[in-house]
């Protein structure tokens, strides 16, 4: 590796603009004539709209237009869609209800958009929004998935009887039942995976600009995947054909899944720009974000895990009810199915698995992928169950896991996945050594002398990144392919621009993608620009989510680079009168191996563009594109250990240490990878200790609609983390990368809850383990 190549902790190229206030986020965008939008939203969780009166609002100062759903429908703007078809076990397709960008008939959650006001200033738009009179016929609401399935509950969509969207299964039910019947021991547990609000610090925003002269739309938006946004807005929402719609996702302040989806606001602002004749900007405030950004998790599961007399897992049976909220968001159906149940084998050789998943409509904001998306739910379920089993069986949690680890690869699980590489024992050993697992008893005794309850817990996670190949996900119901594209443009002076369909919203692609180029060509990263996030600049791409940018996005760059290098070598061979097979690329030069003949990179590039002396028949220029479709998922894995002290008087948990030992395959930039792990762990700790979306079950009001009631992790909730890597290269992509963006959020919640339940001696504790809950659990245990 060079100082800037693969494996180097290079400081980020993008940092200076963020550090000096020169980042350009959507809300920073301003165009001449731009006006401000404010949305009128339903204050009720479930209601019929009897009438909407915009007359008073329309006459208010500064108001340019007040638009409502009926006009939107009349203009042919389509319904929002779910892009992944799931069939129930009886073969019927999922029961999807209509989702209008602006409701005109029924509202189904608090925050459902009803009208948009466009005015000279945001203050005036909001003033006028308060003057829009909507007459509602309030209906009963239901917010909890388990309850929504019961008889007599409010019916949210006519298409979904009893609010059931689908009843899906995976695995072999008969074999699993047999394993449980014949087991020496069965561990049973019921778990709730708490509902979370993703909370990227940049609230969503969009600026819709309609150009009547060109009949062309520009959409600035806080998106993780602007090309998918353009595709969906063109193909399904009838906003405009692709050639008349440019989508730009400039600097984006975090996503964590919540900015994958195309929300009503983008569509409505583009449409409103045409209707009003002015550019329309909307920026969410934080309460709107809590009300309208897709939430994550919200599973209720019952688990049975069967063991033989040697403590080997022989079967796993899971029944899950997943809350999808009031409408089916873009990938909502995939999260509790193919991103969840396919990971239920974990790191363990389990011969029989069966999972049944029912998804349910409720009067809450839609639920979709949030950092980890299904895999945290699977990991929490498995690792809480393993820990519980170890306690019941009276053996150490490490020993029980070791006994059941998968040790040879490839390994076919009973739930689709084919694990390609890994060394689970290595991460377990490393984590235990770093955590001084063996010294825990002494630390616990010392804490007890101070009146504190100390506990330790572990979690061994596996996840699947870089969802692929496209044909396989298509056969499972995906509406899109999951490849990635790249174009490598070598300029005539030798500098390089890489167009990628991946999108960076904090991940540091401008640095890591440039490191790949630096590594391959030996040029400084300062001569490389990474271009992304604009449908006018990059032809097509699938964006960034599911930890896919390294494994899939960079692999596409590798493929394009292969082509660029091949052509450059041909030119160099021609210029130096050498054989093409003798040309090597090193330190920014194309050399004839074994000689002192060399041409600097820029000279070859210049030759390609002057085209004065190219091999016969060769096209001028040096620019190549590629699409990469992976052959398999990648499978990052690791072991996390958490040690806590609980204050029995208040129930407060202090995290004493948090150890992460991960296998991410090959690593481009260790500093950036570690940063991803830190952030993921913090979100996982947030889920386990602090965060919870709470709807009032009676009236469907969102109680946790600001940071006054939704507990975000702060610096003093967390320790500094102890990280290590035990990497086994991924065999299914050219760089051997597995992906690191979600692991921290996937592996950490069960480690923390296992530690707290170990400390307090009460295993029935739900997330988040707030001081009050822990205090109650201690008192219940005593």
């Amino acid at each position, binding site marked *: 590796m060079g100082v800037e190549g693969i494996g180097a902790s290079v400081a980020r190229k993008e940092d200076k603009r963020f550090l000096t206030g020169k980042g350009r986020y959507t809300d920073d965008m301003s165009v001449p004539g731009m006006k401000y939008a404010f949305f009128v939203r339903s204050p009720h969780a479930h209601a019929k709209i009897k009438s909407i009166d915009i007359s008073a609002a329309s006459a208010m100062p500064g108001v340019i237009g007040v638009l409502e759903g009926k006009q939107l429908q009349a203009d042919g703007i389509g319904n929002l869609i779910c892009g992944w078809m799931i069939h129930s076990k009886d073969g019927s397709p999922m029961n999807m209800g209509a989702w209008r960008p602006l409701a005109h008939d029924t509202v189904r959650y608090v925050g459902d958009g009803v009208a948009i006001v466009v005015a000279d200033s945001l*203050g005036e738009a*909001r*003033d006028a929004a308060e003057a829009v009179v909507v007459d509602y016929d309030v209906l009963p609401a239901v917010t909890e998935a388990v309850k929504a399935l019961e008889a007599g509950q409010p019916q949210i969509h006519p298409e979904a009887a009893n609010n059931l969207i689908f009843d899906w299964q995976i695995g072999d039910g008969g074999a699993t039942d047999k394993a449980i019947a014949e087991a020496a021991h069965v561990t049973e547990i019921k778990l709730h995976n708490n509902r979370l609000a993703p909370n990227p610090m940049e609230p969503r925003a969009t600026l819709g600009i309609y150009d009547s002269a060109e009949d062309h739309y520009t959409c600035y938006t806080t998106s993780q995947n602007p090309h998918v946004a353009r595709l969906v807005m063109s193909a399904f929402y009838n906003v405009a054909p692709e050639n008349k719609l440019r989508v730009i996702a400039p600097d984006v302040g975090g996503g964590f899944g919540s900015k994958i989806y195309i929300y009503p606001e983008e569509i409505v602002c583009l449409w409103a720009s045409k209707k009003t004749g002015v550019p329309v900007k909307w920026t969410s405030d934080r309460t709107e974000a809590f009300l309208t950004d897709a939430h994550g998790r919200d599973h209720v599961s019952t688990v049975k895990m069967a063991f033989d007399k040697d403590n080997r897992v022989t079967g796993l049976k899971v029944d899950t009810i997943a809350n999808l909220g009031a409408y089916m968001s873009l990938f909502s159906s995939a999260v509790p199915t193919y991103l969840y149940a396919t990971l239920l084998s974990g790191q363990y050789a389990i011969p029989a698995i069966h999972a049944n998943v029912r998804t349910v409509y409720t009067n809450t904001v839609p639920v979709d992928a949030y950092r980890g998306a299904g895999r945290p739910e699977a990991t929490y379920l498995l690792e809480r169950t393993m820990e519980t089993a170890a306690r019941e069986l009276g053996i150490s949690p490490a020993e029980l896991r070791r006994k059941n680890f998968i040790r040879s690869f490839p390994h076919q699980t009973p739930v689709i996945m084919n694990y390609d590489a890994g060394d689970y024992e290595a991460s377990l050993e490393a984590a235990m050594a770093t955590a001084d697992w063996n010294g825990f008893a002494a630390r616990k005794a010392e804490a007890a002398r101070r009146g504190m309850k100390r506990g330790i817990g572990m979690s061994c996670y596996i996840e699947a990144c870089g969802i692929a190949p496209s044909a396989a996900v298509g056969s499972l119901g995906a509406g899109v392919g999951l490849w990635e594209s790249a174009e490598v443009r070598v300029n005539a002076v030798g500098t390089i621009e890489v167009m990628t369909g991946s999108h960076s919203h904090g991940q540091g692609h401008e640095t890591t993608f440039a490191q790949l180029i630096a590594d391959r060509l030996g040029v400084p990263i300062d001569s490389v620009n990474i271009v992304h996030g604009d449908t006018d600049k990059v032809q097509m791409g699938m964006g960034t989510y599911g930890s896919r940018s390294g494994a899939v996005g960079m692999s596409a760059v590798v493929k394009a680079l292969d082509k660029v290098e091949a052509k450059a070598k041909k030119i160099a061979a021609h210029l130096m009168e050498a054989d093409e097979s003798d040309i090597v690329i090193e330190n920014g030069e194309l050399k004839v191996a074994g000689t002192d003949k060399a041409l600097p990179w820029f000279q070859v590039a210049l030759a390609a563009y002057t085209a004065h002396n190219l091999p016969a028949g060769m096209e001028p220029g040096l620019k190549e594109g590629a699409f990469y479709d992976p052959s398999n998922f990648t499978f990052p894995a690791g072991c996390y250990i958490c040690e806590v002290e609980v204050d029995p*008087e*208040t*129930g407060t948990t202090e995290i004493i240490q948090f150890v992460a030992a991960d296998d991410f395959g090959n690593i481009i930039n260790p500093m950036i990878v570690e940063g991803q792990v830190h952030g993921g762990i913090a979100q996982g700790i947030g889920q386990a200790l*602090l965060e919870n979306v*709470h709807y009032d079950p009676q009236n469907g009001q969102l*109680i*946790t609609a600001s*940071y*006054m*009631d*939704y*507990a*975000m992790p*702060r610096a003093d909730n967390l320790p500094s983390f102890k990280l290590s890597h035990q990497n086994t290269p991924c065999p299914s992509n050219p760089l051997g990368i597995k992906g690191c963006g979600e692991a921290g959020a996937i592996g950490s919640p069960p480690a923390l809850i296992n530690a707290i339940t170990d400390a307090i001696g009460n295993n029935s504790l739900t997330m988040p383990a*707030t*001081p*009050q809950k822990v*205090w*109650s659990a201690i008192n219940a245990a005593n």
Partner: protein
Amino acid sequence: MYATNYHRASSVQDAVKLKSGTEEGKYLSGGMTLIATMKQRLASPSDLVDLRHIPDLKGISVNGRSVRIGAATTHYDVASSVELKAVCPAICDLAHHIGDPHVRHMGTIGGSVANNDPAADYPAALLALDAVVVTNAREIKAGDFFTGLFETALEEGEIIVAVTFDAPEKAAYAKFRNPASRYAMTGVFVARRGNGEVRAAVTGAGADGVFRHDGIEAALATNWSADALAGVTVDASDLLSDIHASSEYRANLVKVMAKRAVAAA
């Protein structure tokens, strides 16, 4: 925020005059609660009269055991006052744990006291220290000043000028923060005063706002130690209950925070 009119007062008299001419005006000090509430459109004063630039309202003076804190003194200035720390470190410590560093740079003792948020910290200190709220019209004992949730004895147009109290022999404040808002979910200020009187005031927990707890005071009057509180019972029926803490849990916190405050005093 709804439209409003801003006025900057140069003196207390000027402030009174400016406000008297408004429809539904409010005094504005640091604004850390009022502006925040207006942003949510939960308050809509027609006018704001800014008190932050009135020199007479600022500053801390310590004369022997006698303390005077100007109403427009920020939490940061209270927290970092060397002379105040020498006689009553408990109130410096309390101020140091209000909000966050940025809020402490703007928020003032007068604003906090006048607002009487049930989860604010200062009301507990004032009640436990038997402090006096000095206004432009009169002096009001803390016990008479805090009259209910967001309610005080202040009359229309009345401005808090300062808070005064005699430094206690021993005092400390222990706070258990709401995990989300970080306001006091329960805070207890205990003080043993020069005349031997013991007071314990509780914030964040009471359904009617800040209150003194007789049982804790009686136990500590007999024996100023955390152990003395072992037999004290805290009635949960008058305490707040919300998604973060039931009244039973708050009752436990009242006792635990009282013990910790005594131990720290």
